[in-house]
């Protein structure tokens, strides 16, 4: 198992998501950046749904008690193994007593820590993904223990994959949402001719943007929302729902992010710029 010596800013355990309960109001949860999580899992030949740690902004300090193999992918958070810098997108062998820690955030926002065979925490409603109140906690805490199956005989087929430049992009591919037609010319212009800044209010539930559109007085009946649904509030605020977002909503759904753009947005932090590019 791993013992958590420091929890970091927001470190949560996630798998591919909790599917099949949206009609009862349960968000899908799961990893925010599926692309990075799959990179980390595939280096260890894990299943794509194996549970890993999603580490946000400031990393935890973790002590391993059994041998295993790990891989990191996503943000660069200056990872260190026993104080020595280690790379992301690489397989690292772990011995009992090893300590993984993190330093400065250099790019992106979320890094994924995959472990050989995946974390073996309890599965609730067919998923290990943390989401309160479905699970008791929404993130890991100091002194917590995270179980995994020890492994000392893995021969990786590839030791590392090339770093990607995906995170540098700032264009989000979007489709017209169900209420796209409610936008007036001024709002349309406001959406597509400038860039937006990620607001301080950004988390696994939703990302808000600092710039607003002109107010929108249209009311609608509550209807389904998805990860990547872009809502416009009556005051003109833009809210992009993410994987822990509510499953229904009453604000007009003006845009819908492509699946790939959800991964990209998951690596954006307060102050970063994004643009919407419409796909027809």
């Amino acid at each position, binding site marked *: 198992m791993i013992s958590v010596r420091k929890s970091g800013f927001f470190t949560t355990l996630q798998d591919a998501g909790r*599917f*099949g*309960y*949206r*009609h*009862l*109001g*349960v968000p899908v949860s799961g990893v925010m950046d599926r692309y990075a999580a799959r990179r980390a899992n595939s280096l260890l030949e894990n299943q794509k749904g194996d549970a890993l740690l999603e580490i946000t902004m400031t990393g935890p300090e973790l002590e391993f008690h059994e041998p295993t193999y790990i891989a990191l992918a996503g943000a660069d958070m200056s990872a260190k193994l026993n104080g020595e810098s280690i790379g992301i997108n690489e397989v690292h062998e772990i011995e009992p007593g090893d300590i993984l820690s993190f330093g400065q955030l250099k790019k992106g926002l979320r890094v994924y820590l995959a472990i050989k065979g995946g974390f073996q925490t309890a599965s*609730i*409603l067919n998923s290990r993904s943390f989401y309160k*109140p*479905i699970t008791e906690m929404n993130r890991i805490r100091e002194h917590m223990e995270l179980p995994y199956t020890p492994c000392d005989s893995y021969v990786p087929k590839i030791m590392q994959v090339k770093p990607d430049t995906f995170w540098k992009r700032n264009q989000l591919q979007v*489709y017209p*949402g*169900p209420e796209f037609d409610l936008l007036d010319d001024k709002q349309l212009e406001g959406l597509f001719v400038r860039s937006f800044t990620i607001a301080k209010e950004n988390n696994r539930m939703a990302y808000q943007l600092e710039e607003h559109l002109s107010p929108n007085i249209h009311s*609608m*009946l*509550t*209807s*389904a929302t*998805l990860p*990547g*649904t872009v809502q416009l509030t009556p005051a003109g605020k833009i809210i992009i729902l993410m994987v822990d977002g*509510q*499953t*229904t*909503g009453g604000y007009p*759904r003006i845009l*819908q*992010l*492509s*699946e790939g753009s959800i991964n990209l947005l998951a690596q954006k932090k307060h102050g970063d710029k994004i643009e919407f590019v419409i796909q027809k």
Partner: protein
Amino acid sequence: MGAFKINIKPFGERAIIITWPDRVEEAILEDIIDFKEHLINTAFPKGEWELVAAYNSLTVINNLNNVELDKYEDLLIGAYQSKKGSQPATRWLWKLPVCYDLSFGIDLEEVAGRLQMSVKEVVHMHTRQPYLVYGIGFLPGFMYLGGLPKSLEVPRKPTPRLDVQKGSVGLAAKQTGIYPQESPGGWNIIGNCPVPVFNVSKDPPCFISVGDRVQFYEISKAEYDLHQIEAEVGIYRIEKKEWHD
């Protein structure tokens, strides 16, 4: 099925949204629920697909792959127009106990004052009719109930409370409902239901579905305590019967 004009649109890469006329109406929701059941039993099985019904829409989501509307539009239209082979979905009326004791109904006296009724009359009006579940969302197990009498309409509280107790039964404008877990909220709290409507140790975690009906009945504080213990140990049986129009 097939009685209304429906509109089919893509909703991103993985979903399709079907909308009915834009109004709150029992017949519309019934039609959506029948159509949803039909789709689950035919071309959109659970697992690969998730279907979310609410008020005047049905959202069909694929959990594995991108969906192209061109491939499904005719299938959906055809399925909606053909009435044969589709059994109307079974609907249930659930009777849920609510304790309107003032220790739970912390806004009940204020609500009664606003409505110019006695507390007893508010409780009577609230328990008199079944409510239709138009949607479940916002929080896991949170039901959007329709059919509140006009005489019980009160505005939501000007400042939301930070922690509304689990099981709280509230009133706000045209809506009434139960908070399935502790959460912030701006509804006027008039009572508490001791039986959890959402329980993660059960699968499915919520026994009520969109399209079902819910009717509240009044219980005393002593019965509340008893039902709470019964629910905790798992021996409480919720009263239900099949609903027919």
